[in-house]
């Protein structure tokens, strides 16, 4: 389980839709020590992007103060039937993307 995405599937043209995403991630701050007393390396998601029909419509910079399993929510105006892509990479190099088709009637 990587993420739970919540986007309406079908809307009328011009509707403002809310995109909600809950990402399963430890958001390790880099300040904590492990059982052996050494620092656990920092591993957060520094940047999150959303493309709508290939065009970037939302981007967030995330910092170590954000808790584990971050929840992001933002709005976009539905203008054409297109793929909504959500993209992020963590500092351990794990790349993720989720895509949902938003149908405009």
């Amino acid at each position: 389980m990587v993420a739970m995405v919540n986007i309406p599937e079908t809307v009328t043209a011009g509707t403002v839709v809310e995109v909600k995403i809950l990402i399963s991630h430890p958001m390790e701050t880099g300040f904590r020590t492990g059982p052996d007393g050494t620092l656990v390396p920092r591993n957060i998601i520094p940047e999150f992007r959303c493309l709508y029909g290939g065009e970037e419509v939302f981007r967030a910079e995330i910092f170590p103060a954000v808790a584990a399993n971050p929840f992001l929510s933002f709005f976009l105006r539905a203008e054409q039937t297109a793929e909504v892509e959500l993209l992020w990479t963590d500092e351990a190099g794990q790349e993720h993307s989720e895509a949902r088709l938003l149908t405009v009637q």
Partner: protein
Amino acid sequence: MIRCVTVLAIGLGTPAAAAGDRQSGYEIMGPELRAMQDDEAANPGMLWVTEGAALWVAPEGAANRSCASCHGDAAQSMAGVAARYPAWNEAGQGPIDLTGRIGLCRTRHQGAAALARDSRALVALAAFVTRQSDGLPIAPDPDPRLAATREKGKALFETRMGQLNLACADCHDDAAGGQLAAATIPQGHPTGYPQYRLQWEGMGGLHRRFENCMSGVRAEPFGAGSPEYIALEAFLMSRAAGLPVEAPAVRP
């Protein structure tokens, strides 16, 4: 002087009155946290539930069977199960909690390696099974053999322990509704375990919460899965009988 006494009486009266009227910890949370629990898309506990749903149908162990191979659709077979546990374990001739039962199923029927109690997979499976009882009233197992376990749990609940010399009842019965620093003391009804605690940044079971409370009063914790915790859990579930299961619950 009379006025002083009145104020004191009100001060002491409020928590006691609250204890008579049972409420879930949900009722004393702020609106933001309640919204987080209520919205499936925002409730981080759903990450574990979804993981548990995948594990439910994944074949495991020497028997190459999944939970679903025997139990089928969890929505049917597991509805109300979490609301009833702890139950009597015929094989072990003793009480067993839901996490223990899932672990036993895994080793006995699937022939798979045991999972650690606090492992992500076991917590996820317990969260998924508990989810099937969401909203159902807590209905303790009527098996008469559990009576002694509940008695033992009640005695533990009322026993002062640790360097702070506090019993569970001192806070969760007598001072419930009062303040412990900035936090409102809940009545301690286990309505939503495993639950997502912001403090843990993760999901954990009731026994993990017991460990926190016990180290909080500077007592030596009994250990997750210990007979003491199962007894305490059995008592607390009977004390909370009738309150709805919240699965997954979110707490601060």
